[in-house]
């Protein structure tokens, strides 16, 4: 038992999204993963079984496990991102289950923004359709490092290798233009459980891993940018107590790279420099801290640093800029307008910005650029130029998903209206 606990403490964490169209078996797939990894409890299963029966459905509808809202169950659709959790002895998994309809692009973007991997489901009978490409495009736009294409319902095409190969070739041809690093293909039957947790006995021609094995073994430690050290300051900790009279710590979560005691640092945008005197984590001192860790930094000399400042290693500064080219996904029914003014949140910094140019809109089905557009509507994706009131210490989204992303906030309703990726 002690070893089991020890293993649990050693597990790492994989966040993935699932994308698919209506009726391609996404909920069944998730149900399968949860059920076969023994993450569904008896009372949950019983409640779903009872509901299915009440609704006069023939089989136990595993979609009811993920569709948590009354309206979702009534309409039989997924409206919002639902988060599901399961763990194997190797890893803990967080699934962001996102609806696939075109009108819910914004939810897909939301789920994809924090994911390490995405599963795209393809119906073996239908092959690659517009929605498949839309999901792949969003995954590439959001720079999800790993893509898993599950060709589902293989049982309905007699487990044919030729069908699978054909879909794979077509997808690979399209993926070239999308610049996706790591793509895996798996032939599955979510309904029968083939190649999900257990290896299929119907497809001897397939030598690759099962879906769960792949999820457990995806190499994710290299996905973080460990080269460019970035530390956006969340707040300044000043205890105001005698024993810590001169204590001044900068609290935040490392957004990239590695910081060690003694490192020469620069504060942006002020340009002030110092060295790291100490790094504290939960009250204990550490020598080195990595991307993803919440820490408190102490510097050798007292500097004027406050929330919204970015501490970087002097050797690898970020660029300071007031003019940004951004790929934006619009999330609001009120369109983005040329010369519109918005609040912009980038890391912990907040500035105002004005939209100076809308260069083009991406036709999400053909992936072609549409020029001469006047605005961007709900679920539109396009390239814009923004000018901000004060400079941002920005990286390109390509280099760092944390310091290359921003959101646009409507100044009167305070609602988040745009998701931006800096070019």
């Amino acid at each position, binding site marked *: 038992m002690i070893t089991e606990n020890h293993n649990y403490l050693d597990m790492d964490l994989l966040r993935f999204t699932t994308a698919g169209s209506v009726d391609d078996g996404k909920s069944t797939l998730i149900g399968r993963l949860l059920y076969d990894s023994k993450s569904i409890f008896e009372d949950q299963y019983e409640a779903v079984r009872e509901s299915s029966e009440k609704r006069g459905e023939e089989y136990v509808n595993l979609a009811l496990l993920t569709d948590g809202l009354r309206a979702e169950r009534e309409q039989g659709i997924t409206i919002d991102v639902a988060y599901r959790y399961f763990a194997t002895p190797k890893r803990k998994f967080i699934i962001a289950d996102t609806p696939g309809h075109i009108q819910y692009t914004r939810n897909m973007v939301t789920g994809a923004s924090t994911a390490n991997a995405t599963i795209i489901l393809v119906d073996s009978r239908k092959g690659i359709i517009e929605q498949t490409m839309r999901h792949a495009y969003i995954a590439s736009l959001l720079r999800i490092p790993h893509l898993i294409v599950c060709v589902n319902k293989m049982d309905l095409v007699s487990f044919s290798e030729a069908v699978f190969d054909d879909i794979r070739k077509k997808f690979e041809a399209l993926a070239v233009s999308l610049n996706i690093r790591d793509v895996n293909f798996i032939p599955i039957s979510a309904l029968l459980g083939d190649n999900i947790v257990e290896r299929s006995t119907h497809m001897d021609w397939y030598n690759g891993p099962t879906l769960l094995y792949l999820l457990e073994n995806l190499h994710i430690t290299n996905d973080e940018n460990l080269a460019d050290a970035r530390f956006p300051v969340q*707040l300044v900790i000043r205890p105001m107590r005698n024993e810590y009279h001169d204590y001044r710590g900068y609290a935040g*979560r490392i957004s990239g790279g590695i910081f060690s005691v003694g490192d020469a640092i620069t504060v942006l945008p002020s340009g002030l420099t110092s060295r790291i005197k100490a790094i504290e984590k939960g009250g204990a001192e550490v020598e080195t801290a990595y991307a993803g860790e919440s820490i408190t930094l102490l510097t050798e000399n007292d500097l004027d640093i406050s929330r919204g400042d970015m501490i970087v290693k002097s050797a690898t500064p970020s660029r300071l800029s007031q003019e940004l080219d951004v790929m934006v996904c619009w999330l609001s029914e009120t369109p983005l307008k040329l010369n519109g003014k918005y609040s912009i949140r980038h890391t912990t910094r907040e500035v105002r910005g004005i939209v100076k140019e809308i260069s083009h809109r991406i036709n999400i089905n053909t992936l072609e650029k549409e020029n001469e557009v006047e605005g961007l509507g709900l679920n539109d994706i396009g390239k814009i130029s923004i000018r901000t009131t004060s400079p941002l210490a920005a990286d390109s989204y390509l280099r760092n998903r944390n310091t290359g992303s921003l959101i646009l906030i409507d100044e009167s309703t305070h609602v988040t209206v745009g998701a931006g990726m800096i070019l």
Partner: protein
Amino acid sequence: MKAHSFKHLDELESESIYVLREVAAQFERPALLFSGGKDSIVCFHLARKAFFPARVPFPLVHIDTGHNFRETLDFRDDLAKKYGVQLVVGHVQESIDSGTAIEEKGVHASRNALQTITLLETIEKHRFDCCIGGARRDEEKARAKERFFSHRDEFGQWDPKNQRPELWNLFNGKKNVGEHFRVFPISNWTEMDVWQYILKEKIEIPSLYFSHTRQCFLRSGAWYAFNPFMTLKPTEKPVEKVVRFRTIGDMTCTGAVESGAKSLEEIIQEVAATRVTERGTRMDDKRSEAAMEDRKKAGYF
């Protein structure tokens, strides 16, 4: 370069601390909703780490139905004293006395739903603009749809179909006058994560979580503590049982499980083997298929 493997409890801890610090930075009058249960205890522990060596910069708020276990209340008071943190208690009894809440009748009467009224009154009275809660997405299907930063309108209501998109780790806590936020730092933790973390960090928890002998009676498949706030049906008889609580609410809605688990290690072993969800003993969730969604929309925790 040495490849570093980021352990998942470490990553969850860092995420939660980041969220708690965002609360302190973005809100003027935040508070931590503290029930005396393990999830809110873990939230408080995370808050201590987040702001160390400074004190936790917000008060604890407890909504007391008047039907709580003595052990929970003692634990709450001791914790507040030990760490020198302000404790605000909202009493459901006061809402009943002033006529804003009406007591339920019958053998299944519970003050669970009335807590929402007292909670919203407490938020208004103290002008809290953000309440931090220990709810987790794995607990319940409506909670699976929650954001980290969850917006509430001027009536304290949740609108699940029209939630703000939450992208990357960019949390938007902007609001209009009279509106407030609920923030859930341990959204991504599971029951198992919480127990493992309590073990790893050696966090103190109320004795109710460990196996003990208690007078109980059986109702709807769960053992309830024999207590002065529940009326027994003629068929229900108190018997002595060896039990522990997996989740702690008030006495009228929290059932115990039969268990001999006396240590954290034994609890973890039990949680790993169990085939029933944590809230399976919560009568408050079982009133209808959407019991939690309905309560949350009205402003529940």
